[in-house]
């Protein structure tokens, strides 16, 4: 996760960088690209659960942002919120085309018989987390993805999702609880 709060200096730097990028300053856009590329990739990977498919989508996010950056306006929201919104839309389009649906957690998990303590002691790998994340609700997965793989603060996640910080914290809590249940079941199988 990033430092708790971005200082005003950092915000000004990013604003300056984005303004330069809007004027087709290639170096500025290259810096933005390097700064966000991995984060956006991880965000998409966790959202769709497929690291290879996430590659093309990530590249498309940056090509789309390049085409539309002139339309970005500073309205008190961080630039990252705009970029993640593009990524979110890209994912939505992708999932719509694939007609992939998320099966609600409550419908698929047995309520008993799992052993969370034992499961927690086992090492979890990335693939397990990705697979488990598919079983979360869209909102839970969004929060987990933004918080834990893209390393955004609660305030930044709230901006991206258009929700209050309290709502994001609640989703963070319910998402982790749900993730734990899925991982417990998976590891006991």
């Amino acid at each position, binding site marked *: *996760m990033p*430092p*708790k709060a971005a200082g005003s200096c950092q915000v000004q730097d990013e604003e300056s960088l984005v303004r330069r990028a809007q004027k*087709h*300053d*290639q*170096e500025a*856009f*290259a*810096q933005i*690209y*390097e700064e966000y*590329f*991995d984060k956006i*990739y*991880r965000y998409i*990977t*966790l959202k769709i659960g497929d*690291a290879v498919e996430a*590659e093309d989508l*990530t*590249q498309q996010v*940056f*090509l789309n942002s*390049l*085409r539309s950056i002139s339309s970005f306006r500073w309205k008190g929201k961080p630039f990252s919120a705009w970029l993640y919104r593009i990524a979110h839309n890209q994912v939505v389009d992708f999932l719509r085309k694939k007609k992939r649906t998320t099966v609600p957690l409550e419908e698929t998990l047995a309520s008993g018989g799992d052993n*969370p*303590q034992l499961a*927690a002691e086992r090492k*979890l*790998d*990335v693939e*397990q*987390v*990705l697979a488990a*994340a598919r079983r979360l609700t869209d909102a839970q997965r969004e929060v*987990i993805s933004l*918080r*834990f*793989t893209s*390393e955004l603060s*609660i305030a930044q996640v709230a901006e991206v999702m258009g929700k209050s910080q*309290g709502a994001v*914290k*609640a989703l*963070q*809590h319910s998402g*982790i*609880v749900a*993730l*734990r249940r899925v*991982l417990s079941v998976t590891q006991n199988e």
Partner: protein
Amino acid sequence: MNNKEFDNIFNDCLERLLIKGESLEQCLAHYPEQAAELKPLLETALAAREASTIQPRPDFRARARYQFQAALKETAAGKSRTSWGWFPRWATVMAIVLALVLSGGGTVFAADSSMPDSPLYSVKLATEQVRLTLTPSQIAKAKLCAQLADRRVAEIAYMADKGDVEQVEILTRRLDEKLELLVVFIEGRGGIHLPGMMMAPPQEEAAAPPATYEAPPPTEDAASPPVAMTAPDKGWGGRDDSTQNGNRHELRNTLVSDAASNRAVLRAGLDDVPESARDALRRALAVSEEGYEEALDALE
């Protein structure tokens, strides 16, 4: 305790654990009453954090960077201009025809974005040489050299990401050649028979195309168009002073931008590439910086 209070406590523990670097035990010590409930959730959060170790594949990262850089340049230069934009239409047609003769089939277009580890890369180099030869004026040649130098930088970044030191060094030499050629054209010293322009690629370039495709290396005989096909060299456009000044100004802006973006690309690579490729990448960076500096000096 209501849910909201627990959400806040849980979030505070996450901040302590993941940002401040406290241990799980230290976090739990702050909330002894909730420790039993918090512990399994924080363990799961740590597992989720593991997912943050996902990294794009080096191949993909390098190719994506190259494609993005190309799109960036195209956007900056205006949507109307394609990567063939500096090239007169008749010459573009001739270049494609010649390259097709050289390479056969519809490989030229696919080759245009190929990388040195691709079977089509030799087609790309051959096409570039044909384009350079058929470009009529010194200014257009200079601009084309700048484009080709850009390509070499993107290829260097790509091969460095893959840890291929030998290719990085070969590409660095090609970059150096292109930047030197750029200076030659800027200074108006470029004639039809410039060294390196229509010669076959150096031995290592043509040496090892994979067995699936073997493009013949361009040769003097095959690739050089008849002299009559080459438009008379008009130096900096052969026009009035204001046009020449405009061309120089435009080229200067392009080079300033290219120098900065290529420096950024190569420097960014230093953080990502395998340790074994870093020295070669540093040399490429030095060649790039020096080459652009000389080109800009030549424009003064």
